């Protein structure tokens, strides 16, 4: 059960900001989110969307532990 967080426009696209999702890797998490919501699945693939695991930016695939926090971050706009 990863804890998934969406920010900015991604949360608007999905209609939620935070959700528990069963997944053991970022790749399988992406597949599950896309299966539930194809529009969100596409939005997560857009260039500039970054992924943070437990508040540290990561690239590519990575395994998820049972309590990992996975955040999908659209391009940062500044404050």
């Amino acid at each position, binding site marked *: 059960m990863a804890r998934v967080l969406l920010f*900015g426009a991604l949360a608007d696209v999905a209609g939620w900001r935070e959700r528990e999702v069963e997944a053991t890797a970022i790749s399988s998490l992406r597949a599950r989110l896309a299966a539930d919501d194809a529009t969100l699945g596409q939005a997560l693939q857009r260039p500039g969307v970054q992924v943070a695991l437990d*508040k540290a930016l990561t690239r590519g695939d990575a395994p998820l532990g049972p309590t990992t926090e996975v*955040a999908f971050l659209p391009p940062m706009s*500044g*404050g």
Partner: protein
Amino acid sequence: MSVHLETAPLRPGEMLDRFTAGRSETGAIVSFTGLMRAEHGAADTLYLDAYPGFTEAEIARTEAEAQARFALQDSLIVHRHGAIAPGEPIVFVATAAAHRRAAFEAADHLMDYLKSRAPFWKRSSGPAGASWIEPTAQDLDDAARWDVVPWDVAPAAEDAG
């Protein structure tokens, strides 16, 4: 050195006084207060999304770089998130240095970073609807001004204040 996120309205005067108190070797304190503009009625709410924990940590890295680069004695960054109304402060930055050039340049540099690269996502709402905002070309140019200077430049010697 510290970075804070707040959902309640910021109080710049109180923050400036607390930041200024008890400094006997500081000659210069610069503060920047960024306010939400009403755009003559075109904007009525700014919503800033932040990732608490991640956002402060990312900002703190740039703050630490700025402290070393400009030989700052101290700095404070307080950023609002959530819904913000016109006329309300969005961000407060203060820098303290022995001499004024360093305090000005550090505050200017921190603001360029905060306005263009810091981990926030912002949505502006008004009578014409709501939209998520990307940094402007000017914001990216402003931030890039600092990239061409070597990181280990020494601050120029200068008189008090």
